[in-house]
């Protein structure tokens, strides 16, 4: 049997079973004309910019623009069409399928009570202009987008990683980045604290205190039969009666007697 083809550019979890004839249903895309306010907005946008596609999905208008127009479009939306909030900005990784990033700007107009999404596609190595002087909220959002996807943003005042450390390598939210981290990520702390030469001495099992060996069927903790790591599992139950105070007692503090304590039925 041939091994199934798996795309190296997308290493995220996949469904292990797909019905051969199953076709995923689509969320309906309604025409923009079905909503008066959106139709007006779209007309105003179309008069100035090239709009590639526009529709309404679940009550919000989605507009595809040319990535070069992003600043002008957002300026137009803010000044002319009173979309006064940029409530979200991020990217979607389509590198595996089409070699592109999809950037979306989620807009909100409090006066019209409408939300819309402005979207555009850019190639992997292409840069997009920063909009953070139009909406200051884009400042951190663009930094996060760069941090997570490696989308280059031009003319940003402080383009630096936001969530990951400065010296991080790789972009965690790309589909090609494994969930448990690549080699750099897994050894990051060891490399930083001890140096690369300590990788062999420390070893993968001590690298991470929360490390769980999935293949190990023997040395996992059995509830109430816990043993130290690496020791043989025991039949003897562990002593769960914990004493919260030293044997001799503590100065001025009375020893808590478990058998003399009572549990209240109701709060006083």
């Amino acid at each position, binding site marked *: 049997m041939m091994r199934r083809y798996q795309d190296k550019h997308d290493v*995220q*979890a*996949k*469904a*292990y*079973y797909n019905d051969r004839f199953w076709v*995923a*249903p*689509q*969320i309906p*895309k309604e025409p923009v004309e079905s909503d008066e306010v959106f139709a007006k907005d779209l007309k105003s946008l179309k008069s100035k910019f090239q709009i590639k596609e526009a529709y309404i*999905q*679940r009550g*919000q208008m*989605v507009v595809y623009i040319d990535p070069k127009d992003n600043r002008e479009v957002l300026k137009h939306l803010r000044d002319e069409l009173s979309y*006064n*909030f*940029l*409530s*979200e900005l*991020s990217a*979607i*990784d389509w590198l595996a399928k089409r070699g592109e990033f999809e950037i*979306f700007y*989620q807009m*909100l107009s*409090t006066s019209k*009570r409408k*939300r819309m*999404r402005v979207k555009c596609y850019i190639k992997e190595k292409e840069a997009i202009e920063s909009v953070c002087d139009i*909406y*200051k*909220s884009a*400042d*951190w959002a663009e930094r996060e987008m760069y941090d*997570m996807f490696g989308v280059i943003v031009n003319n940003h005042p402080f383009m630096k*990683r*936001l*969530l*990951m*450390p*400065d*010296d991080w390598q790789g972009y*965690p*939210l790309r*589909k090609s*980045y494994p*969930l448990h981290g690549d080699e750099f990520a897994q050894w990051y702390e060891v490399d930083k604290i001890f*140096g690369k030469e300590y990788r062999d001495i420390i070893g993968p099992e001590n690298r991470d205190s929360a490390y769980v060996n999935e293949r190990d069927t023997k040395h996992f903790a059995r509830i109430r039969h816990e043993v130290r790591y690496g020791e043989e599992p025991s039949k003897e139950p562990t002593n769960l009666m914990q004493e919260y105070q030293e044997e001799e007692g503590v100065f001025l503090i009375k020893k808590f007697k478990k058998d003399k304590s009572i549990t209240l039925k109701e*709060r006083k």
Partner: protein
Amino acid sequence: METPRREYPNRLEPFFENLVFDRDDNTMVINFGPQHPSAHGQLRLILELDGEQIVKAVPDIGYLHRGMEKMAENMIYNEFLPTTDRMDYIAATSNNYAFALAVEKLLGIEAPRRAKIIRTMLLELNRIISHLFWLATHALDVGAMSIFLYCFREREFAMDLMEDYCGARLTHSAVRIGGVPLDLPDGWIEKLAHFINKLPKDIEDYEGLLDQNRIWKMRLEEVGVISPQMAQTWGCSGPTLRGSGIPWDIRKEEPYELYDELDFDVPVTDSCDSYGRYKLYMQEMRESIKILKQLIPMYKESDPQIMAHAPQYISAPKEDIMTQNYSLMQHFVLVTQGMRPPVGEVYVATESPKGELGFYINSQGGPYPYRLKVRAPSFWHTSILQELLVGHYIADVVTIIGNLNIVFGEIDR
């Protein structure tokens, strides 16, 4: 004399954010956090001071980053729900709910009425819990110890109610996609009624301690002034936005759940400062009590169904699974493979206690979301610090951070 900047950091001379600590311009750079009791989590602020006045502030985040959006891409929808607890861990149900609502919008299903009532109750209870926590820690930061103890006492009652309902005090996971897992236990409604009858008196007590308190007023009035323009351009939401005089509450403007049937007011103030926002939080708690009072009779009239009927996406009730073969098969498929929503995308915003909590979900028809983006209000409220802190004194930093009600679980995600 300026020290030359190195090209690459090495282990002997580490790399401090391109910062040169000794400079010749009479300003001092200090590092606030990431381990600071008033930073409300792992916030690191790099402050440049001229005397005691802040000239430049650079917030640094990421110390609690767990990659939740990445995790979401590798989990089936129901699996991700408990993870959302860990975002705004002060009011976990509001996260669960925002995620569940987004997925429901994606699927095009609606929760039954009783589930909606229970959810709204839990949401408002969480709002009270969160606001009490906010007041407690904020007052503690500013120096009022007793308020902290009083608020935590009342919060404890609310947490007990949460514990009675779902068994957890902090990470509730009390909402499911398509409804709620359980009906209210016996006597819960009475306990809730007892709690909300008592709470207004307590809020009066807090106000009695703080409203005219000279120290409280001196530390909060005219501190952290966010103008309406600033609030808009920085994407503020929730009480921070309404504190700047913009009456925008998603519960009112884009009603979800039962908020269109309920009678409540949205308190707004145009004082724009920390004191105004404090008054707003107090008022919001009263509004939550008002909502809860209206929900109690609504609950008694509703039908007992608590999960939506959508066999393609949501498991049947337990009795059906135990008695009917087809329900069991569907349940098996939904648990092992996960539901497969239609292809498309949604952005759903809800009014969490902190502000606009939105979930953007892009589904490609698979059991895993293709992209999930969390719009957490605290993230945007933290980014405003770089403009807001400038010109304030260093003692006000603590007031401002506390007043913005930021929670690091949802900033770093």
